[in-house]
């Protein structure tokens, strides 16, 4: 399932020497990594190593102490608010808890960004929503339900449709398969790879799911002891001597 055809060498995300501190607690001590255009990149590491924090730093929800994060040509440590807003339209984020707006139906959740940021007519917005609903594998009738009325897997798909609505260049996924049953999780993997191929996406995901890692990731970075201990394809990463990597991939057998 893994294909490198789409990947080019253009870097869309470059992280240099990022240091993160929460008070006295040092979380990242000089993180360096990059994500190429068109690839599915995974952030791996033991619990509490700061994978999610790093992702939240990339999407400007968390500040870092020093270093630099360059995303789609913007340096986010010194970004102006206008450019930041521009940048926010070029990514989609899928949160671990989906974060669908509870007061809106699924279709309204998906349509929201189109209504706010474009002048398109309600009819065409409706059609775009119908397209996104279908492409993530939901039924059209699901669009009229509220988030409280649908299952966890459907919420994931609805949140993915919402993340995709502005045709983002980068998609951030925070543990996308957690809380899904194995069948839905594999379907989700297939969906992500399919969407990447169809929509020219680059994907950054935090994941613990070994099957998902095998199925989807082109490259990955492993964080352990506050630093990146390995970066590259699955084969490359497996050759690195590190207690976490050895134990993590041991579980496959």
């Amino acid at each position, binding site marked *: 399932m893994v294909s490198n055809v789409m990947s080019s060498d253009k870097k869309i995300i470059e992280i240099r020497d990022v240091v993160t501190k929460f008070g006295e607690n040092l979380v990242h001590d000089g993180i360096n990594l990059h994500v190429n255009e068109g690839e599915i990149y995974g952030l791996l590491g033991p619990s509490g190593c700061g994978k999610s924090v790093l992702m939240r730093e990339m999407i400007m929800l968390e500040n870092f102490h020093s270093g630099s994060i360059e995303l789609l040509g913007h340096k986010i440590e010194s970004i102006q608010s206008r450019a930041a807003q521009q940048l926010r*339209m070029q990514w989609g984020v899928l949160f671990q808890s989906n974060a669908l707006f*509870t*007061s*809106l*139906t699924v*279709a*309204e959740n998906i*349509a929201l960004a*189109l209504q706010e*940021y*474009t*002048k*398109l*007519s309600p009819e*065409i917005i*409706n*059609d*775009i*929503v*119908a*397209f*996104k*609903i*279908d*492409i993530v594998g939901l039924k*059209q009738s699901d*669009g*009229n339900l509220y*988030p*409280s009325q649908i299952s966890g897997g459907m919420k994931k798909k609805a949140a993915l449709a919402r993340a995709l609505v*502005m*045709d983002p260049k980068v998609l951030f996924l925070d543990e996308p398969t957690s809380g899904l049953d194995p069948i839905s999780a594999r379907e989700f993997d297939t969906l992500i790879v399919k969407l990447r191929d*169809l*929509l*020219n996406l680059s994907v950054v995901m935090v994941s613990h799911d070994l099957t998902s890692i095998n199925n989807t990731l082109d490259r990955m970075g492993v964080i352990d002891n506050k630093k990146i201990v390995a970066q590259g394809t699955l084969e490359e990463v497996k050759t690195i001597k590190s207690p976490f990597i050895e134990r993590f991939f041991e579980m496959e057998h």
Partner: protein
Amino acid sequence: MTARKVMLHIEEESNTATFKLQGTPTIQRLSSLEQKLAASVDKVKAKNIVWDLSELESMDSALAVLIAKHIKQAADSGHHVTLNEMQDEVKKMLTMAQEHTHFNSVFEAPKESILQAIGADIIDRWIKFGAFLGFFGQLSLTFFSSFYHLRHIRWKEMFFEANESGIKALPIIVLTTFLTGVVVAYQSAAQLKLYGANIFIVDMLGISILREMAPMLAAIIVAGRSGSAYAAQIGVMKITEELDAMRTMGFDPYAFLVLPRMLALIIMMPILIFFADIAGVVGGMLIAKIDLGLSPTLFLERFVEVVSIKHFWVGMLKGPFFAILIASIGIYRGLQVKNDTQSIGFNTTKAVVESIFAVIICDAFFSIIFTNLGY
């Protein structure tokens, strides 16, 4: 470099209209194209429509949906639509849009008629009323059984709650009742002066503050502070499944969460009323001195003489009843929280409004009962 703007050329000759797109369209700039396309639909007379997308380098999904919709509308109205050669990327996206877009889908949040809404509301209220009775029954059971098993009472939690909702509320309650004493005394002083009945301010203040003002104000402030806090705390615990976790571990949430809060308020409420009494009377005394020249000594002598102790006890007795109402409504509202964010706000508001309302109703009943009993 490709042009930033999207250009649509429509050429019509004899029987064929050619739609040609150039540029790099993005979703933000799509609305002008949409308008042009919509306007063109009626104008085109030609039987055949040819789409020339050969100069497009990429196509995002919104544009693809737009063109797919146009193609479908044209085909439906009897045109013959053909697509010229285009780049693979563009072709893939357009095909995907044609396959996946359901143009007849209509998304509307489900609406209900007034009659349906009223019916649903009545049934909902009926069910909620039953649920409240159930809750109250369970609460009473826990409450009375706790007297048989005194060591099962969570003393630590209870004292924590007594501090949170009782002692920390003391400054604001004292200040409020002090100011109320000042205001009531000041307003009545002006009237009493007219008749030279200065000394009767003591009777007036003593009875009104001890019997009504202090208990009511204390209860309303506690309802606003603690009723809302209980609803929000327990509501969030329900959303984060903490309540479920407690149940599965065999901890009864009623014993762990509900009873300590209830007992804390029952104990603290009379104490708060006691301090509210003092603050209110002191406020009145201050105005009596300043405005009517009534010395504190004289005020207190008269106070002991005319304000019998029963007024104090009537006020104090209301405390535990108000406490039961405030705590049970706040906690009940917390337990009613459903698994979405809106419902916390809704239930917190309800907790405050309903508990204040209940306190006032309860106070009215006490007023009638005690007066008829001759107290």
